[in-house]
């Protein structure tokens, strides 16, 4: 292991390591994946893996959690995104191939992908 020679190297190392520690730190963004039997059957696990990979690739600070079925099984996989006090947006039929665009538009550009929205809950 290389020795840390300067303050900058310590900061860099910390940044590298933070991904591993993310679930334990505070963040204002939570992505919730419906993971009931219906969600899993519709490919929610693949969707979630795609989300995790995308977050890592783009170094986005967000928590990913899972929930059970909320009753809208026909629209699974369901993905909710909540940022701070913004309304919680529910997206339907988010298969893994849609994840890059979802992350790009919603989290990077800050635009809700209206065509996929199936619900909104005030924050």
């Amino acid at each position, binding site marked *: *292991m290389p*020795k*840390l*020679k*300067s*303050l900058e*190297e*310590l*900061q860099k*190392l*910390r940044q*590298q*390591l*933070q*991904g*591993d*520690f*993310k*679930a*334990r*730190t505070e*963040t204002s963004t*939570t992505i*919730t994946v419906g*993971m*009931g039997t219906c969600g899993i059957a519709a490919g929610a*696990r693949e969707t*979630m*893996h795609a989300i*995790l*990979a995308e*977050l*890592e690739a783009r170094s986005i600070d967000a*928590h*990913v*959690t*899972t*929930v*059970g079925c909320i009753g809208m099984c026909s629209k699974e996989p369901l993905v909710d995104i909540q940022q701070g006090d913004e309304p919680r947006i529910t997206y339907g039929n988010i298969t893994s191939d849609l994840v890059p665009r979802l992350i790009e538009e919603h989290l990077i550009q800050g635009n809700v992908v209206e065509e996929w929205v199936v619900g909104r809950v005030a924050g």
Partner: protein
Amino acid sequence: MAERSGEHRADVLVSCLHDRAPELIPALEEEVKRRGLEGEVKVVEAGCRGFCAMGPVLLIKPDDIFYVGVQPADVPELVEETLVKGRVVDRLTYREPTTHACIVHCEDIPFYSKQVRIVLRHCGLVNPQSIEDYIAAGGYQALAKVLAEMTPEEVIEVVKKSGLRGRGGAGFSTGRKWEAGRKAEGEPKYMLVNGDEGDPNCFMDRALMEADPHSILEGMIIGAYAVGAHEGYFYIPFEHTLSVKSVRNAIEQAQEYGLLGEDILGSGFDFDVKLRLGAHSFVGGESTALMHAVEGKASEPRPKHIHTTEAGVWDKPSCLNNVKTLNIVPEIITRGADWYASIGTETSKGTQVFSLAGKVNNVGLAEVPMGITVRELVFDVGGGIPNGHEFKALQIGGPSGGFLPVDLLDMPMDYETLAEAGSMMGTGGVIIADDRTCVIDTARYFLGFLQRQSCGKCAPCREGVKRMHEILTRITEGEGEMADLDVLKALGEAVKATSLCGLGKSAPNPVLSTLRYFRDEYVAHIRDGKCPAGVCKALITYQINADNCTGCGLCLRKCPQEAISGEKKEPHVIDQEKCIKCGVCFDVCRFDAVDVV
């Protein structure tokens, strides 16, 4: 560098195992793997969360779901429900003791809600074996700030301004100690860590060394920079095997990363640490005794006409701090002296970690702001007295602390108020006594401990504590005389005034404080021949109350001496000749039919 597991969504933090379920972590890992959650969910063995009474406990991040008393058999359901489906398993959550309502999040549990976790900030959150976890949580940033931006004098000034006082018991200002260390002449200077926690029933230092060793090391390096030391010793009794393992590993990792050694972070500052193991003893944590042990000599104290900051280890300037003191320093550097000084009371700043033991529901470690009242500590954080008994006294400050009675329930706990009340803060060890605890018998127990732990170097402690113990033993055996009370008081005050080190100076506290607050119990023992708490065997007899006895036969079957006789459904009787007063009949009776007289 440890292999990175990459992005994952949840951490399962396992704490307070205490050998109760060694199979739990392998079972969790196995189940996570079986369900194909590898890479999604990480199982982390984190240090103590303080809620030892409820262990093993699990905290699932980021949802903050908190499970208590988890056993390997619970693992499949837990993984299926919570980690796969995101649902809470109600039966594993903490139950509010009176309403039995489920509490899912740990910050809502009364034990945690009054706590302010500064010392314990990483406990149960980072993996103590991983410097990477510590760095990711912001570790060694304070050290970097100190080395890059601050002079040693500025560091000392910040620590002084924060009002931080040594957490080893004496409560001396850490900033002033460092200042004395900085000014002391002579080379080399040494920085030492005191990891010898000697109080029976206390385990906060041990828990901290096990759960967060890097924070102590970071504080130690900052301290060394402040006083100008380039060599340090971390002293731990070898019996604390887990602490030794944890600290040794932390030192090695810090050395590998260049956070110990030469030219730390390119600042030109050199500092390295050696681990020193000693044999555990109560007096071993006394500063001069500890320094003797570091030198390889017997761990006996010496008179402190010359401060150890001027002449300590090998007569060189030596700065010794408790593990908790050092652990707080990085947090003060990061968050500022004003922030720290805003917590606590006028003279006692910050928080104190109390280890709760004895007759209290939530046995464990709790960190609360200085100045919390006895009532809040016992009834809110501690969860009250088990089995419907009454609170009688709180003993604080370790074996040589004093007893505080019910009248002082609303007293704020800080260094000065406790000392005025005849006790002391000590390291924060708290033992709670209920109405079935005899304070004289407990004082006798502590004096016996202190007598055995006395190094024997000075006469007041060696002889005085022994005599006090003998007198207390006589009183609990029903052979006391009223004149004993005056002798105890005079003896206690003499030992307190003339002993060489802190052990002897504080040893009479249990006697003097019980004489002050529980004199009527002494009188009951001596004059009336009774032990009000029903503990001292020579002064009590067990009798069966014929009106309440249903003749169920439970006590008859449980009595180890076969001293109880009686027909079924008829009142039973105890044969006093055979009875050894073990109290089993009293404990097992469901009809309140056994009386202690």
